[in-house]
């Protein structure tokens, strides 16, 4: 294989890897503050794309439509937590996880009902020919995907490290009881986490729709991949989730290059199983900590 061809596969891997990273971050943020896996995370991705197309159809320019879609999805994430999950918090993690599965089905069905069963597409943010990098072609939209991923990661880092809210979120991820003794309203933190997770998922859906199109059922597949990426990184650590996403994207892309495209979608499942069997704390995790 020539260097340029190899580079082409690497670029493709990093492109889908960025999307997985954003979705994985959504899993991580919710897991951090609640200790549960939110199986509706993939639907936030779907809503981001589908709602952008809908807002765009109303005549809004693409960036505004995307912003509106991200904001709407974040609001839906908050409402989902507030009205579907909060009252059941005392029922334990299993019940909550099952509610997220139910929520995912409801969101999917509503999307199909409201936006139709067909594939939806969106123009590229900045249409134009691909850019040549060392013989490999990079779509302009891929640059947007990377750019938005970087912005999201930096904002999230700043939020966690530098703000009062972020400190409260980290306190919450360590112990709810201790956080409450400090005066942190943990119920509110959980709600905010769902909003952030939904926004991250929606941002991914918005950024990638011009490349892949989207539809009401786009959430399930990306949910599995984002989950695999989050597990690979060792749930609970945002930086590791991003690396997990990029590694998964590269693995998929290189498997197409060296094995066969037939197995591309099986890679994430294989990764998920191998990590869970062999290294449940993920690539970067140390000993598994007990969630209270």
């Amino acid at each position, binding site marked *: 294989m020539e260097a340029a061809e190899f580079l082409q596969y690497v670029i493709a891997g990093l492109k889908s890897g960025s999307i997985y990273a954003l979705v994985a971050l959504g899993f991580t943020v919710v897991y951090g503050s609640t200790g549960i896996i939110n199986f509706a995370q993939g639907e936030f991705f779907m809503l981001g794309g589908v709602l952008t197309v809908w807002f765009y159809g109303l005549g809004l320019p693409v960036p505004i439509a995307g912003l509106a879609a991200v904001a709407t999805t974040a609001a839906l994430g908050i409402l989902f937590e507030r009205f579907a999950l909060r009252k059941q918090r005392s029922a334990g993690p299993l019940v909550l996880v099952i509610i997220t599965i139910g929520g995912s089905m409801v969101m999917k069905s509503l999307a199909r009902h409201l936006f139709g069963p067909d594939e939806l597409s969106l123009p590229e943010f900045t249409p134009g020919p691909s850019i040549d990098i060392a013989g490999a072609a990079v779509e302009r939209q891929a640059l947007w995907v990377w750019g938005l991923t970087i912005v999201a990661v930096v904002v999230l880092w700043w939020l966690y490290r530098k703000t*009062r809210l972020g*400190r*409260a979120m*980290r306190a919450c991820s360590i112990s709810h*009881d201790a956080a*409450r*003794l*400090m005066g942190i309203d943990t119920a509110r933190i959980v709600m905010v986490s769902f909003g952030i997770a939904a926004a991250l998922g929606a941002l991914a859906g918005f950024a990638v729709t011009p490349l892949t199109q989207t539809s009401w059922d786009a959430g399930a597949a990306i949910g599995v991949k984002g989950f695999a990426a989050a597990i690979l990184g060792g749930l609970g650590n945002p930086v590791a989730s991003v690396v997990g996403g990029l590694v998964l994207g590269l693995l998929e892309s290189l498997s197409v290059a060296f094995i066969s495209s037939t197995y591309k979608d099986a890679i994430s499942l294989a990764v998920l199983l191998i990590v869970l069997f062999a290294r449940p704390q993920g690539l970067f995790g140390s000993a598994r900590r007990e969630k209270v």
Partner: protein
Amino acid sequence: MGAELRIDGLCAGYGRVDVLRDVTLRVDAGEMVTLIGSNGAGKSTLLKAVAGLLRPAAGTVTLGGVPITGMAPERIVRQRLALVPEGRMLFGPLTVDENLLIGAHSRPARDAGVAADLERVRMLFPMLAERGAQISATLSGGEQQMLAVGRALMSGPEVLLLDEPSLGLAPRVIAAIFEALDTLRSEGLSILLVEQDAHLALRHADRGYVMRNGAIALEGPADKLRDDEQVRHAYLGGRPETRE
């Protein structure tokens, strides 16, 4: 700065298991009161019920005359009552400074008192000033306990509850912590101290309560309790106080 804490007829438990039975206890403003008793007597349960981590089944808790019974812990800390919990419950992966800042979460971000209290805590435990950037889980047990006390003080409490602050620590460290508690009391803070080391607790406190099977069995001034035959027999190892 201290406020009065009154606990009247408090009953609480876990699920169907009753632990506390009709507990009545008070801490006057600026007083240090200790609650002693054997393991499983219900001392920690009482502190949890007062701080809001456990909802009492009956009875009342008032703080400076304001009822706080059954309030959520995040609201109780805003009423100026802080708990240094059993096992410390530090935010282990976070730094010392971050733990202290989170301790002040219940106060407005621009509260000038926060900076003043940070200074005060660092004066009280100079180690916390030197180790600000250290991950708190890597501190020694005694340092962690100091951080736990410092973190609780960052909420600007009028009443401080402590759950076995001496547990598992070396005598030298225990002395440092109790010296700090004496200082806080002399500054007017009201303190309710749960201890398994009855000698130590009765030496520092003004008054004491003895808990047995979830109820108050005895109460009185600390020096009277130290001399009490029953207390001496049951909790002080049956010998007159010789350790100092």
